[in-house]
């Protein structure tokens, strides 16, 4: 089980130095890549998010391929085809009526926000109750999404820790959904770089050999 570093604030600016003063620092989280964590995340997501949010680039078959428990997938998909995308259960019209906007698709959520997985994690746990009894969000005050995890009403440390674990699993699932080939990419990357190191060293020696002909 390998943990991958998510570096939300690493943006390589080649001509400029780093500029990110205006944004509040996010807690840097590492997403889990294990099947178990992603499966827990999928479980939570299907319960807490899927009624309003779609994941249209993820098909039930992708979950099977990844290795998530088949029985769970069968329960989630009901009579939908294995190749059906994870559409939300709510129509756009109903969403417009309840929230005034269509909840965004989550397939690329951890890629589509500055800060990536750390942003989504902090956002899910960013709800709090104002003194006037209104629930707001530290990261995104104008959000239309209710506090689905219920973090704003939870004060007991043990329960808060549990919700943090839940949010972490959801974010792990979303990170996988946004980039399902990440593991494969890293693995291939190690081979390619290893190969290039060998080839480049060889070329270096050949270059020295050939240039040594010159007086």
């Amino acid at each position, binding site marked *: 089980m390998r943990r991958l570093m998510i570096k939300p604030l690493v943006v390589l600016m080649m001509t400029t130095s780093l500029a990110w003063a205006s944004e509040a620092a996010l807690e840097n989280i590492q997403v889990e890549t294990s099947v178990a964590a992603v499966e827990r995340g999928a479980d939570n997501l299907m319960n807490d998010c899927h009624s309003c949010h779609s994941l249209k680039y993820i098909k039930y078959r992708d979950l099977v391929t990844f290795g998530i428990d088949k029985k769970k997938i069968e329960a989630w998909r009901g009579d939908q085809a294995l190749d059906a995308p994870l559409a939300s259960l709510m129509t756009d019209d109903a969403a417009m009526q309840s929230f005034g906007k269509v909840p965004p698709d989550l397939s690329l959520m951890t890629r589509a926000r500055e800060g990536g997985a750390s942003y989504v994690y902090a956002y899910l746990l960013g709800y709090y109750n104002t003194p006037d009894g209104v629930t707001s969000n530290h990261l995104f005050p104008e959000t239309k999404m209710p506090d689905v995890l219920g973090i704003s009403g939870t004060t007991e440390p043990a329960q808060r820790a549990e919700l943090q674990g839940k949010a972490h699993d959801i974010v792990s699932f979303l990170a996988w959904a946004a980039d399902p080939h990440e593991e494969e990419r890293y693995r291939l990357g190690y081979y390619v770089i290893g190969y290039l190191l060998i080839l480049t060293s060889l070329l270096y*020696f050949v270059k020295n050999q050939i240039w040594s*002909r010159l007086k």
Partner: protein
Amino acid sequence: MAENDTSSDTGRRNFLVGLSALVGGAGAAAACIPFVSSMNPSSDVLAKATTEFDLAGMNPGDMRTVAWQGKPVFVLRRTEEQIKAMAASSGGLDPEPDQKRAKQPEWLVVVGVCTHMGCVPNKEGPGWTCHCHGSQYDDSGRVLRGPAPKNLDVPPYRFIAADKIIIGEA
């Protein structure tokens, strides 16, 4: 131009050059793999490699056309007479016993693509007729009249329930 080949270390250099060329060439060849591979069917196309088909509601003599991998598959529920006639004959140009072509005598599943030039034959009277070049097939999908050289293909399929088949998996 200033160039001076002492050629004292030619052997070692040739070895290094050869080795580098070999390693570099192998890498260049390997780098072609993703490009070639990207032209193969993508995973969502591969996922459509099998088709499930519900046989319920078909009466004897009914034929349905099912899309499998983008091709038409004929599913024919044969009548008693058709079963008898087909069992008695061994076809025409490409003789083959009917038992080998139908897993259950009542159900015939064949790829509806003429083995001549790939047109889709029509169900006409007993069997099928291809309108492109006039080939004729019987109710077992066996070719009776050319120019088609071979019988209609039987796709891999199996019964996953009494009234349900999956095409694409044997």
